[in-house]
């Protein structure tokens, strides 16, 4: 026994000598951001969820970019650009000596390769380019032209979205999605990626712009709001961004150890009607429901006032926004329903669908509140049904659900992205709505081709008026960005596009 003890002691001493130096990373050198979002892919041709795209916004840069905190477009990797008079050709000139994080050149060929690759791979965001881009023509190393199928005013905004960001042709294949560590063109690059757990970003030494304020950013992924909340209270993260429950956020607001910030968000939520399915094929019923829904109650009871009411599909703060939908008026709702022959003994029987986890744990409460509001008319019997997200998508694309809850986060910051996908005949089936209106189609196409913002705004106003009459959707509310930080964190910017810019954040 004594021998064994001596041997153990010797081993401990031996290992003790080989004890490595303490890690020389100071607290100031890194920031830990906690989130409950998921990262599906960091390939611009495939990424199409919030966190994947947001990380790409910090890893990569496109031809153009938004001025932080605004929706103003400025040159990114492009030095300048020109649009032909017919709006069909965009010519770009790249800045000099641009390099990817691995040292490979960022040139016109890289852009041609990247755009064509997105279209060829047909990933989830590819429609943003494939619907509009005809081809890409390389003039020389720093100059190239993008030819469009038709004039499309918001095209420049699409170029600021990750789907248009350049990838290294020497590393990425044009016939397969890329699963390795991304090659960067932006302020940060990925050093380590433990899938489902954390992503470590470090400064990109070859970035042409201003260097990131903090050398290392660690993004930690938590399974749910409770896990993130506890980790925050335990001071394991410096910043909690997306998403704590409203009640947790309210609790933290009272805690002196943290700062909180609330900012605008272009995220919207709405009720969708399948206008081909009975009884929702009757626009009077849809209109009656629009009167019966009390947004203020949903906002206060479910979200503790942390979202704002929305009366059109275009969010508040964006040009073209016109709050046209009817406000809460139970009497009018009852009037319409009674005129259709419904009574207390012969109520309208409907089903409202929701997805229990995709929009956070508040979703069931939203559905229940709407059910209660509809039933408060005394003329509706509403049954609630839920389905997990994968099933939910399947159901709405197949037209199974007649009335359901959905949300929308924009791909590019333009009213077109809040109108076309919802109301255009070609796009609305993908939303589960199946709405079709010739006049609306004409107006939407007209708005795409116009370049003058004022004229476009007028057209969108007309579309919104028709939308309010037909009520294929009931916009409910607009989200808000909520972030919790340790007091020593600076530089967090909650911009209207909801790009969370890690490269501006630093510790005091």
């Amino acid at each position, binding site marked *: 026994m004594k021998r064994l003890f001596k041997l153990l002691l010797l081993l401990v001493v031996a*290992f003790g000598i080989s004890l*490595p130096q303490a890690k020389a990373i100071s607290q100031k050198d890194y920031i830990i951001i906690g989130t409950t979002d998921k990262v599906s892919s960091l390939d611009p041709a495939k990424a199409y969820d919030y966190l994947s795209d947001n990380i790409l916004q910090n890893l990569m840069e496109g031809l153009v970019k938004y001025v932080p905190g605004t929706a103003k477009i400025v040159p990114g990797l492009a030095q300048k650009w020109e649009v032909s008079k017919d709006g069909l050709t965009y010519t770009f000139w790249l800045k000099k000596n641009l390099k990817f994080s691995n040292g490979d050149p960022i040139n016109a060929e890289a852009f041609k390769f990247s755009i064509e690759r997105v279209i060829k791979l047909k990933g989830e965001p590819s*429609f943003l380019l494939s619907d509009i881009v005809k081809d890409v023509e390389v003039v020389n190393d720093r100059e190239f032209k993008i030819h469009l199928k038709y004039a499309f005013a918001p095209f420049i905004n699409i170029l600021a979205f990750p789907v248009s960001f350049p990838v290294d042709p020497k590393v990425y294949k044009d016939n397969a999605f890329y*699963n390795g560590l991304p090659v960067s063109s932006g302020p940060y690059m990925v050093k380590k990626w433990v*899938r489902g757990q954390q992503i470590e970003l470090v400064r990109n030494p070859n970035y042409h712009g201003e260097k990131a304020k903090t050398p290392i950013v660690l993004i930690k992924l938590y399974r749910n709001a409770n896990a993130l909340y*506890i980790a925050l*209270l335990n001071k*394991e993260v410096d910043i909690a961004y997306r998403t704590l429950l409203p009640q947790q956020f309210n609790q933290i607001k009272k805690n002196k150890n943290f700062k909180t910030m609330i900012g605008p968000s272009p995220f919207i939520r709405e009720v969708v009607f399948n206008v081909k399915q009975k009884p929702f094929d009757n626009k009077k019923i849809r209109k009656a429901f629009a009167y019966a829904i009390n947004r203020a109650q949903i906002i206060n009871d479910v979200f503790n006032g942390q979202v704002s009411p929305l009366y059109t599909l275009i969010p508040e703060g964006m040009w073209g926004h016109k709050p046209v939908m009817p406000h809460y008026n139970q009497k009018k709702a009852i009037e319409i329903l009674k005129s259709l022959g419904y009574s207390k003994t012969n109520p309208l029987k409907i089903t409202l669908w929701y997805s229990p986890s995709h929009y956070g744990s508040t979703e069931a409460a939203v559905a229940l509140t709407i059910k209660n509001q509809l039933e408060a008319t005394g003329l509706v019997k509403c049954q609630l049904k839920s389905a997990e997200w994968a099933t939910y*998508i399947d159901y*709405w694309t197949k037209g199974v659900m007649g009335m359901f809850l959905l949300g929308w986060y924009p791909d590019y910051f333009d009213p077109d992205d809040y109108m076309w996908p919802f109301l255009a005949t070609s796009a609305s089936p993908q939303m589960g709505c199946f709405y079709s209106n010739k006049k609306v189609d004409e107006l939407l196409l007209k708005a795409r081709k116009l370049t003058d913002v004022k004229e476009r705004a007028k057209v969108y106003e007309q579309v919104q008026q028709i939308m309010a009459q037909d009520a294929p959707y009931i916009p409910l509310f607009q989200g808000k960005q909520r972030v919790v930080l340790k007091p020593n964190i600076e530089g967090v910017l909650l911009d209207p596009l909801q790009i969370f810019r890690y490269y501006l954040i630093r510790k005091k």
Partner: protein
Amino acid sequence: MKSYVLTRIGLSIPMVLIILTIVFFVLRVLPGNPVLAMLGPKAPPEVVKEMEHKMGLDKPILVQYVNYLKNIAQGKFGESTVTGMPVIKELMQKFPATLELTIFAMIVAVLIGIFYGTYAAYNLGKPIDVSARIYSIFVYSFPVFWFGLMLQLVFGVWLHWLPVSGEASPFMTPDKTYTGMYVVDAIINGQWDVLKDSLNHLILPSITLGVVISSIFVRMVRANVVLTLSQQFVVAARARGVKEKTVLFKHALKNALPPILTIMGLQFALLLGGAVLTEVTFSWPGIGSYLVSRIHARDFPAIQGTIVFFAIFVAIISILVDVINAWINPRVRY
């Protein structure tokens, strides 16, 4: 012995095959198109069809089933529809974390089970025995996530003693990975700070999981020791004047152990799958939470792969337990 082992292996094959078949057909019966879940609702119908063709989902279900079995027989688990990575590679990345958590939870459960169970049996009918029985029932009915949350609140948030999520602090991962289990890798690398950190991270999740399953062990050990304590050889030992401690641990417990070990072995295999809630509560990057997230995404290859992996693992462990048991106690072989 050889024929016994062969029979056990032979019996396990249909068991695994039944599980594979059930998983395959249940996934196909459930609503939710994996291609739509992967490409999103905006994908044009022709792209959806193309992808279904690429994944073989447009073939008759029996053809898909035969292909599925063929691939598994060749060790091919397919590629995840979410990440595009080989499922086996993803499983191998996640499995060590689950194994590590399970081993530590097992240690907690066994220690509580043996000591509490043995003392309860020794003090049959006394308050400690009553407390053990109450403990078993009480702990067995604990919701794992609730218990985990309470531990997180007390030891993490209020006392700030222990971390509450993940398997390591930032920049505290082993420099070189050999097994994927941070504790083992840290020891091999001689990184004592990393070892301390990973042990700290293991404490709360393994106590959560360990305490919850300890209830079964406490009851089992108690019952078996009560039985052995009443046997002639214990009476004889006491009559010879052997110390009570020796009687209890060397005579009674030792003889009560073989059936307990069998159950413990099987419990260990089942625990690997049952760690899901603990993994979710503690953001532990293991196979359980991997499976849950992939079920949400209808990632057929990943779900099938994980369950096949589990089925084979549980089958191997149960064969090993049976063989060891048969080796210790030849009477079980008939």
